[in-house]
């Protein structure tokens, strides 16, 4: 007998209620669309809450030399020029308005002495640019958006997980979801669907992500026929906790370095001076003396004159550069006892300053590791944090390559190119969350209603019911932990062809095992069943990452190949790797040309 399900109909359905999803839903509702917001956890718990350091926006409150053109340049350089330049431009232009809008909705950012929004330094940003609230900026943003959303007439569906996108011909027609508490199914019919499902971190063993981060949006869009780009670019944040083991991977904000913290190896050496890539030499301090002068100048009441100012310390290079440097130090035997390096702010700022600027880092280390960061250095190492790659979208509307399907935030690709700068994700989700909401509302208005096909709905339900009915088979936790271990080993920070082949083979082997995965218990709040469903998506995105990684035969940004160590200035500088399903449903990875930048914007990148 067919499993029953309930139904509802909306103009716009937004899947995911982190920053991007909330911002998209608010916009769609303000445009007059009936809007549903589907939230995998409780409202306000999404991963945006973990963002710490700040939101990047060239407001120029701390240094008036800043402007959107420089933010654009920093973003493109950080992304090693692979970014969708239109997204990078819109992002840099619109971020300041999106931040100010949050203030009108109740956000309370830290202030400058003259009462404006305070901005802090961050890796790869030339000027102090990150609006922040201590080191809990993400909480401030998600709470502000949440409180705005509950007064916007949005239909909220908490603790629901989407299991598939339905289609009416070429066009998306809605989605099917289950309620985590009861295990009951619900089919949404929608004229437009916005994916805002975040990232994929659970595919890697050491990561900074929560259980939700299983690439649901990436995988469902791919299965619905959408193209994914740049999937080889997975960001390993340079500073995750390494000890105790139970918190390994937990994020340590880049704000520690923005506030003056420095990286040291077990000899006490500030090793980052040995890892300044040619591209960043002109704007990076090459002596400790100059780096120390930089910190003094940043703390002075008057901004330094850019012509004579000290250059930024190499500890604040973009994340890909720093993560690789740490990896190299540890492999050379200069790491800490627990396989990381040291991050020291205790010797750079007073205890009062540290507690004021980094309160939750202070608390996190004190309570979880028994380390007082105002007295001792932290032990840190790289942790899987973010994926630059995602669904190929149109910059202005966030429309994917499937009609009616939109994407914003981490699940969308292109904005960050080969490497994302810290602070650019909170601004990304505000700018493109809003644009996705607008795009979806426009689409819903200008296209008629869609038909819903019960066969597709029952198909999705049948797939996720199957593991409950099996009498034997491997458990979901076993498959998931093998996948994460293999991805870390074979498709991690440093890659090479033979390991990537092994990684792909392992995904195929586990996908085969997954066909007989067995779940114990019922459908009501059953984490085993929930994981078994998410595992399908984890396997799909893991394959996409590994296939994209073996295709790109060079090193660029977050993608480092031991067998192709150079950054190619010709062939690979001009293409994205595009993932799509071929006619037989097999995954293919193909280089496709980048968008051609306008001469005016290209000029901003010179020098």
């Amino acid at each position, binding site marked *: 007998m067919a499993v029953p399900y309930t139904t509802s109909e909306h103009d716009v359905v937004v899947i995911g209620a982190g920053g991007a999803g909330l911002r998209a839903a608010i916009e769609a509702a303000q445009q007059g669309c009936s809007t549903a917001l589907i939230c995998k*956890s*409780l*409202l*306000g*718990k*999404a*991963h945006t*809450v*973990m963002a710490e350091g700040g939101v990047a926006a060239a407001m120029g409150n701390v240094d008036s030399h800043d402007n959107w053109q420089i933010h654009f340049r920093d973003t493109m350089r950080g992304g090693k020029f692979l970014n969708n330049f239109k997204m990078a431009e819109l992002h840099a232009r619109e971020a300041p308005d999106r931040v*100010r809008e949050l*203030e*009108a*909705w*109740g956000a*309370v*950012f*830290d*202030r400058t*002495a*003259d*009462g*404006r929004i305070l901005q802090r330094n961050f890796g790869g940003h030339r000027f102090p640019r990150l609006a922040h*609230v201590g080191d*809990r900026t993400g*909480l401030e943003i998600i*709470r502000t958006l949440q*409180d*705005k959303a*509950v*007064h916007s007439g949005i239909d*909220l569906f*908490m603790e629901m997980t989407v299991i598939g996108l339905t289609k009416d011909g070429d066009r998306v027609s809605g989605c099917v979801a289950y309620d985590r*508490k009861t295990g009951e199914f619900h089919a949404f019919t929608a004229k437009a669907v916005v994916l805002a499902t975040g990232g994929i971190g659970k595919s890697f063993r050491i990561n900074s992500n*929560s*259980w*939700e981060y299983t690439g649901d949006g990436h995988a469902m869009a791919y299965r619905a026929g959408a193209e994914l780009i740049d999937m080889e670019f997975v960001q390993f944040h340079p500073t995750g906790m390494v000890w*105790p*083991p*139970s*918190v390994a991977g*937990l*994020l340590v904000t880049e704000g520690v370095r923005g506030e003056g913290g420095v990286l040291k190896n077990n000899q006490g050496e500030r090793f980052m001076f040995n890892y300044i890539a040619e591209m960043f030499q002109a704007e990076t301090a090459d002596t400790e003396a100059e780096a120390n002068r930089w910190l003094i100048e940043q703390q002075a009441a008057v901004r330094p004159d850019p012509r004579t100012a000290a250059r930024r310390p190499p500890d604040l290079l973009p994340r890909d550069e720093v993560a690789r440097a740490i990896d190299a130090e540890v492999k050379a035997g200069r790491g800490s006892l627990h396989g990381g390096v040291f991050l020291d702010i205790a010797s750079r700022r007073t205890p009062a300053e540290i507690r004021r600027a980094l309160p*939750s880092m202070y*608390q*996190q280390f004190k*309570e*979880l590791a028994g380390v007082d960061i105002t007295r001792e250095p932290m032990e840190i190492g790289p942790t899987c944090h973010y994926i630059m790659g995602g669904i190929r979208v149109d910059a202005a509307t966030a429309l994917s390559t499937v009609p009616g399907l939109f994407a914003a935030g981490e699940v969308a690709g292109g904005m960050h190119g080969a490497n994302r700068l810290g602070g650019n994700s909170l601004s990304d989700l505000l700018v493109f969350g809003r644009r996705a909401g607008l795009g979806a509302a426009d689409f819903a208005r200008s296209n008629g209603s869609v038909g819903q096909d019960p066969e597709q709905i029952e198909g999705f339900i049948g797939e996720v019911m199957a593991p409950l009915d099996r009498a034997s088979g491997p*458990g*979901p*936790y076993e498959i998931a932990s093998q996948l994460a271990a293999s991805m870390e080993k074979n498709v991690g920070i440093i890659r090479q062809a033979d390991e990537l082949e092994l990684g792909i083979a392992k995904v195929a082997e586990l996908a085969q095992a997954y066909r007989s995965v067995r779940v*114990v*218990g*019922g459908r*009501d*709040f*059953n*984490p*085993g*069943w929930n*994981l078994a469903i998410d595992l399908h998506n984890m396997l799909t995105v893991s394959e996409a990452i590994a296939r994209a990684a073996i295709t790109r035969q060079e090193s660029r940004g977050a993608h480092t190949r031991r067998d192709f160590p150079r950054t190619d200035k010709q062939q690979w500088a001009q293409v994205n790797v595009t993932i799509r399903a071929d006619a037989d449903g097999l995954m293919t990875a193909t280089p496709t040309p980048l968008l051609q930048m306008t001469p005016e914007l290209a000029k901003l990148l010179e020098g």
Partner: protein
Amino acid sequence: MADVRFRVWRGNASSGAFVDYDVPVTEGWVVLDAIHWIQAQLQNDLAVRWNCKAGKCGSCSAEINGKPRLMCMSRIEDCVIDGTITVQPMATFPPVKDLVTDVAWNYTVNQRIPPLAPKPPEADGTWRMQPYDVDRVQEFRKCIECFLCQDVCHVLRDHQTWAFGGPRFMVRTASLEMHPLDTGSRLALLRDARDGLGLGYCNITKCCTEVCPEGIHITDNAIIPLKERVVGEYFDPLARGLTRILGWTREPRT
């Protein structure tokens, strides 16, 4: 380290009981690690909410040895009593399954609180707020909505008086009432003991403040100043008259 016996409440809305699990704990573990170990190794269907595992999202609230705490921030060595740790769901809210409770009521309370009504911006389209002005509301905005304060509040827990919004929403209302840009008033809502937030139900036992993982001074800095404002507005004719005549504004203590 030696095995630790975890007594975990298993059940649903209609029935439940404690079940013992012996867990080989590792140095540095928190209670949530042990629950995850049980889930991955022994009982895949053990229900628990969690997200950040860093004390930032407020999902993994439970009662550990009877005390409301975040499981992710409770080190095992600090919780063991005679080799045992007892973990049960928050008692104030209806059980869903195992350690998961139905906290949906909280979201309906939040919806009743009118949002910020900001004063017009300055000529350049932005607002000025001084660092000392924002300090006070930033304390309230640290709230991670773990609902541990709601769990321990005797008005909700023992008396099941749902006309009281609970400490969490006193903090939320305080963050708006004391917001430097706000022009609205939520005093009538706070006073209303039937369809509002029922502020009068709180008799300042400070239990909420004690369990707040963010260290927010819920009673002293949010509830008492709000009570003073309500009293000033509705029950103190002299202050009301002077406020009107002299244009006084009544600022709570910092």
